[in-house]
């Protein structure tokens, strides 16, 4: 086999991806150093780092970085912990396990905009929402979720969407456990906790790495859930990096500032990627 063929096969994907990355990046770089407001087409010209300065000194900036990381961290933590618990719970057969599996995975297929509106209206509405009814049933004051706990509300919605994913990966992983080994450990008098500590959890290690990797990719840019529910507010309480850039671009029409912001998002993504590559490299490279 000559060396030409492998390269020819790789080329289409690599070249298109490269263009997909580099063309927007170069354009973004260019937009970020000029005055470029869609509402003021007469104001143009090179302005150096002014857009960057504007974006960073905007008080929303630091809030959005913190929110992005909070959202990412909480959802990963919630889905990994609960996913592990649920997977362990339904690992062994019980009546209706097939149906449970189907019902559990369903939220993963629900599109983010539906997910968001479903929670915003039917679940979290402070008067008619199901949660408000539950609160009232227990004699508690209903919570106005989206106003009082906007970021937490978004975290709940996104976790609900991603929990099935984590759970299913863990279930699949548990099914490949060595049953003889489990049996043997039980014969030797190991308690369930000991099995958990020394057999189940170590076995799950690599699938945790997969879940963290995939979720990180998708959660860094959570957008639709915020767009359709809180609109980033109240104030900036639920604005993440992706939404802040969107606001600058399509609500303030300031393409220059939005582009400066986009470059920060790229930096943030690369920090996350570097961290991820070290972790995944260790876990998947076997």
């Amino acid at each position: 086999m000559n060396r030409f063929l492998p390269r020819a096969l790789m080329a289409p994907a690599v070249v298109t991806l490269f263009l997909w990355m580099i063309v927007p990046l170069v354009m973004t770089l260019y937009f970020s150093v000029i005055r470029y407001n869609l509402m003021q087409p007469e104001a143009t010209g090179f302005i150096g780092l002014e857009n960057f300065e504007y974006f960073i000194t905007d008080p929303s900036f630091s809030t959005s970085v913190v929110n992005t990381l909070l959202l990412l961290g909480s959802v990963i933590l919630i889905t990994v912990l609960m996913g592990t618990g649920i997977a362990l719970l339904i690992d062994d057969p019980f009546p209706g396990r097939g149906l449970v599996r189907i019902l559990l995975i369903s939220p993963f297929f629900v599109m983010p905009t539906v997910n968001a509106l479903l929670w915003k209206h039917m679940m979290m509405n402070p008067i008619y929402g199901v949660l408000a009814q539950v609160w009232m049933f227990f004699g508690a004051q209903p919570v106005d979720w989206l106003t009082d706990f906007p970021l937490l509300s978004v975290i709940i919605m996104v976790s609900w969407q991603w929990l099935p994913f984590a759970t299913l990966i863990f279930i699949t992983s548990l099914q490949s456990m060595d049953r003889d080994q489990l049996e043997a450990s039980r014969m030797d008098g190991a308690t369930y906790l000991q099995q958990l500590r020394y057999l189940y959890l170590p076995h799950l290690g690599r699938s945790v790495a997969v879940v963290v990797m995939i979720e990180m990719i998708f959660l860094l840019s959570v957008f639709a859930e915020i767009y359709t529910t809180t609109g980033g507010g109240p104030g900036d309480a639920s604005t993440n990096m992706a939404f802040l850039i969107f606001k600058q671009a399509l609500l303030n029409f300031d393409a220059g500032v939005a582009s400066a912001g986009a470059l920060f998002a790229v930096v943030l993504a690369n920090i996350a990627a570097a961290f991820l590559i070290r972790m995944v490299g260790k876990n998947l490279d076997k």
Partner: protein
Amino acid sequence: MSRAPTFTPALAVRTVAAWLVTLILFFPLGWLVLTAFKTELQAISVPPLLFFEPTLENFREVQERSDYLLYARNSFVTSVASTLLGLALAAPAAYSMAFFKGPHTKDVLMWMLSTKMMPAVGALMPIYVLAQKSALLDTQLGLVIVFTLSNLPIMVWMLYSGYKDIPPEILEAARMDGATLWQEFRQVLLPLSLGGLASTGLLCLVLSWNEAFWSLTLSAAKAGTLAALIASYSSPEGLFWAKLSAASLMAIAPIVVFGWFSQKQLVQGLTFGAVK
């Protein structure tokens, strides 16, 4: 899998616990389905109604108000086309990386993944401008291109981890026996990688169907997908939950049902070879 459960108290506890957790997690979706068949008044009744006479009125009204079928067709065309295009680009690349591993294969893979980590919004301005300049704004073709490219890294990864598990000796043996490149592909590689192709395609289909960011920003009344249609229902007053539910149900039902049937295959591929 064939271990038949014998009844014990522990099993009873486990069964109840598992079902309880499942019902709580499934509840929002179940509630959406119920609400879709209520009248607007029933939808906001206090306390919430569990039993009522179902109506199909909402579905009729949604179709009348917003031409559901147009959006559904856009969703269908864009997700199927981007999946096929994505597979056509990703499969050869993944094949080449898995069977002709070079010194930089690993770096290329990591680089691909890192492009996916960049938030789509970072590329919004340029892509918007480019789409506008090339008259791809609010067209199915524009969305297909964007969907394909944004799914490509994940597709290459999934296919790569599938191919990696095929022993290269099998291909070599076929080659020794005088198989041409086409025969090798058609009779050895394709049957072996069908599972990987299927699960990758399934995931891509789900991701494209549910993609919201690009369809919200790049499409409108002509090429809008269901995800974008639903977002247009997000006005603040929200006393039209039954219609919203009906529209939502119509938007998610095709892909959820599809997902139910293909979940085993889908998960197999999603584990990226980390789980056997």
